[in-house]
């Protein structure tokens, strides 16, 4: 298990390094000089030279990448061109809000998705099963920002039940929770569909296994058979997907945060891109990549923990 963990973590670090180099190269290739864009057309050459020097843009590209990596490794992601605040500080301020949104989304989608998937298996072949299938596919195919706009229209504008924008008042948990409902719903509804389909498929496969017959042959109740003997095995592919899911949820959070004007890493990043605030853009991308890799690696380790067969396959 330890060796497996070490290998997974090394792999994650290699991916992170590759992403950072590729990203730096892409930013470097964008036409335009970041320093003059940041300072505007009326900047003096001296001021520009100073900024270029401070951003390290006068160095050769490889040196720049090296410096960026070295600083990033020490937790220094540079400074926001506009506010002069450290990028890491900005990210740490905005990211928790996005993370709360992402995790809330994932949790409710997971609970509902598994329940719907299991329900489709319990009533397989009936009208309920077919309706659930239709519903799931519709959930999957509607983009989250479209749902977001209609949610605002119905629940915030017409019914006035929930706030349309923002993340709630600081220090007021109730208003924060109320502000979370619509974004989390918009973001998660597609995942409910995905998870329901996935759980249904893998549960159906597992229910055909001999060990399910064995459990039944000893008189275990159907509920125990489904939840202890089948779901435990059927859930394994779902966990692998969840990690990827959190990644894609965080990236679609960019749209949802924009629609709901909700502060978060998505709004931070879109703002920085339109302002050509490169240190912030790079810091955000780097941070999100690192976070994503962390989650995927953690999920792999969790699967190894849940499925002894995987654990042993890597031990050998």
């Amino acid at each position, binding site marked *: 298990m330890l060796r497996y963990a070490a290998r997974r973590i090394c792999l994650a670090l290699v991916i992170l390094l590759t992403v950072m180099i590729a990203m730096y190269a892409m930013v470097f290739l964008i036409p335009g000089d970041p320093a003059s864009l940041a300072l505007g057309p009326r900047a003096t050459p001296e001021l520009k030279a100073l900024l270029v020097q401070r951003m390290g843009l006068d160095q050769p590209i490889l040196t720049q990448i090296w410096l960026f990596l070295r600083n990033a490794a020490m937790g220094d992601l540079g400074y926001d061109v506009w506010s002069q605040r450290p990028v890491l500080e900005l990210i740490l301020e905005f990211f928790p809000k996005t993370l709360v949104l992402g995790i809330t989304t994932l949790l409710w989608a997971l609970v509902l998705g598994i329940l719907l998937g299991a329900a489709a298996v319990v009533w397989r072949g009936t009208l309920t099963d077919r309706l659930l299938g239709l519903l799931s596919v519709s959930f999957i195919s509607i983009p989250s920002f479209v749902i977001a706009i209609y949610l605002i229209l119905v629940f915030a504008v017409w019914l006035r039940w929930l706030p349309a924008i923002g993340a709630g008042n600081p220090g007021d948990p109730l208003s924060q929770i109320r502000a979370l409902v619509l974004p989390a719903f918009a973001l998660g509804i597609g995942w409910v569909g995905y998870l329901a389909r996935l759980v249904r498929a893998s549960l159906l496969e597992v229910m055909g296994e*001999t060990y399910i017959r064995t459990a039944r042959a000893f008189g275990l109740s159907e509920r*125990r058979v489904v939840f202890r003997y089948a779901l435990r095995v059927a859930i394994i592919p779902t966990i692998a997907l969840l990690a990827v899911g959190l990644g894609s949820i965080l990236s679609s959070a960019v749209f949802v945060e924009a629609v709901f004007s909700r502060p978060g890493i998505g709004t931070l990043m879109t703002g920085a891109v339109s302002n050509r605030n490169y240190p912030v853009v790079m810091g955000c991308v780097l941070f999100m990549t690192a976070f994503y890799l962390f989650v995927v690696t953690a999920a792999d380790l969790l699967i190894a923990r849940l499925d002894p067969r995987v654990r042993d396959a890597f031990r050998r």
Partner: protein
Amino acid sequence: MSEAVLNVEDLALSYPGGVQALRGVSLQVRPGEVLGIAGESGCGKSTLASAMISLLSSGAEITGGAVYLRGENLMALSERDRRRLRGREIAMVFQDPLTAFNPVLRIGEQLVDFQVNAEGSSREKRRRAAAMLSKVGLEPDLALSRFPHELSGGMRQRAAIAAALLMRPAVLIADEPTTALDVTMEAQIIHLLRELQAEVGCAIVIVTHHLGVIAELCDRVAVMYAGEVVEVAPVDDLYHDPLHPYTRALLSCDPSALVEHTGHLPTIGGRLPDLADPPPGCAFAPRCPLASESCATPPPRVRPAPAREVLCHKVAP
């Protein structure tokens, strides 16, 4: 005849598409006896085994008859009442020990779970599981904490047999318990089953196409063909004096019965009839060397000796 512990009466079962997998099967299992069910693939022997524990695969439908376990009609019971009998009165060992256990639960956890119908705390159940595991020749403390994939095929089948005997059921159904094992393992498992049967005193119904297993283990044999029991006989009588033409053909196909070196293995010509539309007469007639015109009508059930039954026109009562 002593009172049967398991009594199958005129059981008919069909699968989707109208395939009549069992066509009026009647069979009694007496307390403590070992009954073999033999026949070629597709003759309905595994279906009969699942019907005996009323664990049918989806789509299968009982179209007639009944199965009585200690006098209770399984087909008339609610699913809940049927569950209550499983493991305690009747248990099953499956063919493939590789997939018989859940891969993500330890053997110990599963053996405890399997005793849902038994009295006692889970610690007691664990102790009972350990005792039974050592009886089947496994190191109990080791086996309890293992995951199924950490055991070899033979060890898993031993564990499966231990699981089935945990509650000392009256009947043990073994569906091809040695088919997935190699020859040495097969001999060991047969030996183990015999030993445990003597100790626990349960009746065993063993489904197999391996005639050697039947000769080794069984007291009586039922030979099935095309969803019917065509011959029932004590094992010695069946081997020395097979009466049904199909039994005779089956026995002569056993490679271990060959005396001389031959270039090819003996086979029965032709194939099983289409069970979606079975012939009205004897199902074996098209492949039978003795078939005559009378075989186009349903064959009589003949009792040539007190303990024997044959379904054939050509056998004199």
